[in-house]
């Protein structure tokens, strides 16, 4: 399972980076989103993998997933959402101001 997760993180990162390096705002936003998925997944699994043991205290259970990375990822997701929303609207603003959707504001 660990290998699967590692590969997933890697793939998401790779796809995110590739899109980040595109020249238009929309693909870049998609890239940012993919990259933040990679980051969230990565941060989350830093508490190691565990199945069926959510960090919700139950009387007869002693096994729990590490709750801290989960809390961190929650914060990261929320912040990431705010940032994504901001950059999306900025992309619109840039298109309105620059007349095109190239990240450098000029058609190549």
């Amino acid at each position: 399972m660990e290998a699967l997760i590692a590969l997933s993180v890697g793939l998401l990162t790779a796809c995110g980076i590739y899109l980040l390096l595109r020249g238009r705002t929309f693909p870049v936003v998609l890239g940012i989103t993919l990259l933040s998925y990679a980051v969230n997944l990565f941060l989350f699994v830093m508490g190691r993998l565990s199945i069926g043991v959510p960090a919700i205290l139950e009387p007869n259970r002693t096994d729990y997933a590490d709750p801290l990375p989960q809390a961190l990822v929650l914060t990261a997701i929320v912040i990431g959402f705010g940032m994504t929303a901001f950059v999306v609207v900025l992309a619109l603003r840039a298109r309105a101001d620059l007349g095109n959707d190239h990240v450098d504001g000029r058609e190549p």
Partner: protein
Amino acid sequence: MTDLGNHVVIAPILVPLLTGTLLVLLRGSATPLRRTISMLGIQLLLAASLWLLLQVANGDLLVYQLGSWAAPYGIVLVADRLSAAMVMVTSVLALFAMMHAIQGSDRRGRQYHVLFQFLLMGLNGAFLTGDLFNLFVFFEILLIASYGMLLHGGGAARSKAGLHYVVVNLVGSSLFLFAVGTLYGVLGTLNMADLALRVAALPPEEVGLVRAAALLLFVVFALKAALVPLHLWLPGAYSAAGPASVALFAIMTKVGGYSILRVYSLIFGAEAGPLANLVEPWLLVLGLLTIIVGTIGVLASRNLALLVAYLVVISSGSILTAFGLGSQAALSAGLYYSFQSALVTAALFMLTENVARTRGAFADQLRAGPMLPAANLLGGLFLVLALAVAGVPPLSGFIGKVLIIQASLDTPAIAWIMAIVLSTSLLTLMALARAGSTLFFKTDTNAGAATLPDTANLVPVAAVAVISLLYVVFASPIYSYTEAAAAQLLSPADYIEAVLDAETQASDETRLDSKTLIEGETTPDGMALPSHAGGH
């Protein structure tokens, strides 16, 4: 009830937060009211910062346990000499920037005051937090507020620069999380003091991972600090931003520098075994390169805003070079330099706006424009600030540079540092002379008439010019402070002890629980536990 003095550590975060919130709630209210509130908030912040500074000046480390949860489990704020000084400089800068903004540039767009306050909150939080993930959160606060401030006023140039700035920083934030995640994944903690302890006891097979994370974190901080080659975002962003915004941005690269200083002296300091002094060699080389590249930019700039933006790059390079030397004298020199360069570059940005406004269509472009009716005043202020920033006596930058060179005298890097610092100073001086002579002396008879500058608008600029001089006059006490701050940084054991050994401010027995809530019994404990750096 409570003694407000116990909460002085968190005040620099809460004051702007509450001011900002109040301003959010006052949606649509008249500008004078917003300005008044904003200004009052800053003055309150200034008072709080001063109070904090006085409390830590004797070497005390103040630890504030949020939610009464002790480190490493809860988040703590830590005020030492360095963080208090950074907060203080931020407050002073904020005051000047706000004085400037309320002369009218705050009205060029909306929400200026809200963004301003939240940016302050982010900055102060970043300086005060003792928790690595919380540092990330405050980075994000200051970044998103800075995005807004950069775009304040609108226009194509800002949109483009904003897009670059935002996307680059979003990637930076991702890297931050990768780094923090790895550190947690290996070390299992987030508190910086606790991280330091665990790094010191790191088994050899984990060294590679932690080193990778630490270096990745360095990339993030270097990005904020605009260290070459990660400075590419800065010139565009800073030159495009309105001066009312960018004046406060002058401190933002310092957050990167601060974080480098904090993290690599505390967590990866002398005690870190194989990971000790991890980034210093990089800092030294890249810092010097930054100075060079910044100078190239200064020489190549065709408008004043861009030129000043490159000056920020240079000053960042100088500071990081000093940090790269690593000795107490060098850190102290870097800090001394850092405080004044934040103020001076901010004032230059403000002055740029005044000049641009006066020159009409010629704005801040470095070409002959209309005859300036107040060339003496504007030019005089420019001269003083230019000298200060280029490191020419008798202004603050000079002492800063001398201190940096002096700190490098008995290191192998001396030749490089001296050659680069001095020659780039000369080139900067030449570029500034050229710029100043073009802007204030050279006139184009066909250029029409310039308008008179608003003198009220120049008050903060002049104040910084005076401060720059006073900074030299009182160099000795200031340096003693930075020296003590550097000493504090170089003995992380005190920090670690203060943070981790701080008594829980509310133990499980005395916690404010339902019983006390109902019966109204509380047992207040001391809040900000002082713990003397030299003690124990």
